[in-house]
């Protein structure tokens, strides 16, 4: 970043052309980017009785963010992302259950590492394929892990999972209390914030730019000499690590881990959340998770037997009218509004 120190030449260089601002200002912080965090803190004070729901929401956001990196930015079509969520959850869960390790932050790092390792091993094989083949292979990888966790019930607890995990206090101070979710909520918020800052940095970096290049036209990326497969594997590992953190957090917050961490249900839900909010745009994960979980919550109260019907209808509407999710729809409307204002 020495470029800021270079002497000014006095001549307006090409960077002075306003055409570059789309790129040079893209990573600048905008005022509204503070909103999710302000709202999250406000939620803590406003709904002290719903912190368990809130923590779930934060974890869903983190999980959807991890998927956004692979699917939204690099275009890796996957239906098996819960494999990494589950790996993180079981790593943290088993370490705590057998009393090996229960310091929460380092446990999350271990969970992330384990998930990244699974991402690396599967990615080396999977990422040779694309499209439907890739989709099916990610699905089967997850199914294999799920079966492995089910069959190894001596260590994983099988279908019943591992209950009553003892998680150490955060920073040695803040206890996880199964009745009051204060620590869980704030800890999840902190972890989400750190992961989000990392992810935001990543997608606006040249590496992130090259991922979007792979998504937009992989043949062209080969033709400009990009090490496409290596980049995809790195991206997949990072995405897996973030999903692993989400899974680990889920195990810590709920003090249990079971097969629901690994299943198709979870993988499909996170995909729906991301598509609902809008993929490849960072904040789609936030919007999607809030809308999905809020709908699930309220529809289940209003119409407990068939709440999924309402969700299904919403998805149909999104698929028909808002291909790029809720944020994409907002984008389109905003562009149209600006175009109308520009044209007298």
């Amino acid at each position, binding site marked *: 970043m020495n470029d800021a120190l270079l002497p000014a030449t006095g001549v307006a260089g090409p960077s002075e*052309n306003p*055409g570059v601002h789309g790129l040079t200002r893209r990573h600048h912080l905008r005022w509204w980017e503070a909103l999710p965090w302000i709202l999250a803190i406000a939620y803590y004070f406003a709904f002290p009785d719903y912190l368990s729901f809130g923590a779930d929401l934060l974890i869903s956001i983190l999980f959807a963010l991890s998927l956004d990196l692979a699917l939204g930015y690099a275009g890796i079509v996957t239906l098996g992302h819960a494999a990494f969520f589950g790996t993180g959850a079981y790593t943290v869960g088993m370490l705590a259950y057998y009393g090996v390790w229960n310091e929460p932050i380092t446990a999350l790092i271990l969970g992330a590492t384990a998930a990244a390792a699974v991402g690396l091993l599967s990615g080396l094989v999977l990422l040779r394929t694309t499209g439907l083949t890739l989709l099916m292979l990610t699905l089967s990888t997850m199914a294999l892990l799920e079966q492995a966790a089910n069959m190894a019930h001596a260590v994983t607890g099988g279908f019943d999972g591992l209950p009553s995990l003892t998680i150490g206090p955060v920073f040695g101070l803040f206890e996880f209390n199964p009745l009051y979710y204060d620590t869980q909520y704030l800890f999840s918020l902190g972890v989400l914030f750190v992961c989000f800052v990392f992810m935001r940095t990543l997608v606006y*970096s*040249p590496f992130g*730019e*090259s991922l979007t290049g792979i998504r937009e036209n992989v043949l062209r990326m080969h*033709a400009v*000499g990009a090490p496409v497969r290596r980049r995809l594997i790195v991206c997949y590992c990072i995405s897996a690590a973030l999903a692993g953190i989400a899974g680990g957090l889920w195990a810590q917050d709920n003090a249990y881990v079971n097969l629901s961490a690994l299943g198709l249900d979870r993988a499909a839900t996170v995909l729906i959340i991301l598509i609902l909010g809008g993929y490849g745009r960072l904040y789609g994960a936030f919007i999607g998770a809030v809308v999905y979980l809020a709908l699930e919550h309220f529809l289940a109260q209003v119409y407990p037997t068939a709440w999924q019907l309402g969700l299904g209808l919403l998805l149909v509407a999104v698929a028909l009218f808002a291909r790029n999710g809720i944020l994409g729809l907002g984008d389109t409307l905003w562009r149209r509004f600006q175009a109308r204002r520009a044209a007298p």
Partner: protein
Amino acid sequence: MSEVRLETQALTRHFGALMAVQEIDFKLTAGARHALIGPNGAGKTTFINLLTGVLSPTGGRVLLAGNDITATAQAERVKRGIARTFQINRLFRGLSVLENVYISVAERIGAASGMLAPAGRRRDVIDEAMALLDMLKLSGDARRRVSELPYGRQRLIELAIALGLKPAVLLLDEPAAGVPSAENHIILDAIERLPAEIAVLIIEHDMDVVFRFAERVTVMVGGAIFAEGTPREIEANPEVRAVYLGEATPGERGRAAHV
């Protein structure tokens, strides 16, 4: 004769029983303006794919500046200076014009794997990309999404991405294909202004373009080299006229060749 940049020796590629490219001996010199012509299915694009490493040959060798690159991977050939454009646009359609060129420049100078500093702070990459866009008169569209531009201008971006790689050898696969004839001159002007030191091989159907641009012409028919010479020699060669150019009058050649 100046130094040979790219050379093939008995380069051959079969697809099953089809001899797509047969025993081609070909030389491209530094600064060359060389056209490759031939009827559809003559093996021109296969030949380009063998040069860039998209396909591997059944036999023969490819030499870049005297070094054997027959077994070298595509990405490595790009690093060593071979760039190409595509007959049908292969652009990053959802990204801005600037980003399209940014990706290529960043890849060349090794900035593309950086994860920490924002892409927008790599002024070196941005300045170089903008200079290229300036040269191609595209800088006014830098912010616009590629898919919003007319096809003729998109063809220029195809060229800009290749030039972002600072190639020693540039392979242009029908650079004006699909462009309405009214916009054709934009592409041709750009090609004529290419830096003199680049060795350019152009596949082109439009004979007017070939005769305007090329200093040397190779004619491929049925996967093999049929004739090679200056545009004047090729034009005067009765066999070439018979198999390829037809007996059309000069003004009609371009259109005749498209049919």
